[in-house]
């Protein structure tokens, strides 16, 4: 019986910069930062109130998984903003929006009322986008 998702990936272009973005700007908690040889770290962070979900800040580097051509393609797609990482929930979307903006986070859409709740979109330092939504705003029952 599968019960939970506990580890998932975000492909990033630079681990140092991603660390700064996720920990210092978004306020995520650092879980693991383990050296795996030169220039490579096992770097994971968690949303502040969800320690059982770890996001691996996964560098796109030429490796067994990414031959040169694949790595180049992936980097292009990330920079184009093709990948969305999911929805982040916050206590108060207007306060969170102002705070992240003050810290230099780039928003694609300011908080906007949608049929499912109030939502903003922002990009991480690599180009991956997130949807930011206020708590209690996302409920399927409300939309039926």
């Amino acid at each position, binding site marked *: 019986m599968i019960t939970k998702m506990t580890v998932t990936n975000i492909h990033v272009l630079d681990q140092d910069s991603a660390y700064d973005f996720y920990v210092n700007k978004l306020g995520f908690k650092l879980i693991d930062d383990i050296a*795996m040889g030169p220039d490579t770290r*096992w770097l994971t962070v968690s949303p502040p109130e969800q320690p059982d979900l770890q996001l691996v800040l996964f560098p796109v580097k030429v*490796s*067994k998984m990414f031959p040169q051509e694949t790595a180049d393609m992936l980097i292009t797609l990330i920079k184009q903003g093709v990948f969305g990482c999911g929805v982040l929930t916050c206590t*108060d979307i*207007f*306060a969170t929006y*102002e705070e992240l903006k*003050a810290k230099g986070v780039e928003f694609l859409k300011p908080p906007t009322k949608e049929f499912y709740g109030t939502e903003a979109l922002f990009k991480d330092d690599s180009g991956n986008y997130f949807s930011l939504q206020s708590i209690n705003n996302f409920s399927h029952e409300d939309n039926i």
Partner: protein
Amino acid sequence: MSNADTNRDDREIITPEYPRVYLYIRIVQAKLFIDNNYADEIDLENIADEAYFSRFHFIRLFKSAYGKTPHQYLKSVRIEKARELLKEDKTVAEACFSVGFQSLTSFSGLFKKITGESPSSYAARHKAMKKKISEKPLAFVPSCYAYQHGWLEK
């Protein structure tokens, strides 16, 4: 504060009116002031001044935005920073004074209340864990990732 005032303030927060942005910017300024100055002797009065609010109005707005009063938030930031310092092998006293506590007793008490263990036991547990990780990092990384990156020991 009368009921009429309370209702007016709540309306300010929930209606999508333009000036609400200024209100949020001020609350956020206060929050960032805590984030940047937690290590100094700051109190609620400094924090409210920073946001140009009267004290009670400010506490309520801050709580509605962050789910904690400014004082609770300041304490949680301090304990969180102390955890980081203890993980980095700082002593309990160093962690205590560098996050803005004036006494070891109040620091240790609050730390235990929030994290469920004393600062010294927290530090010892992390030191032991760090040693294990440095001896055998692969034991702490899911093997599918290790395989894909060619980290597996032959």
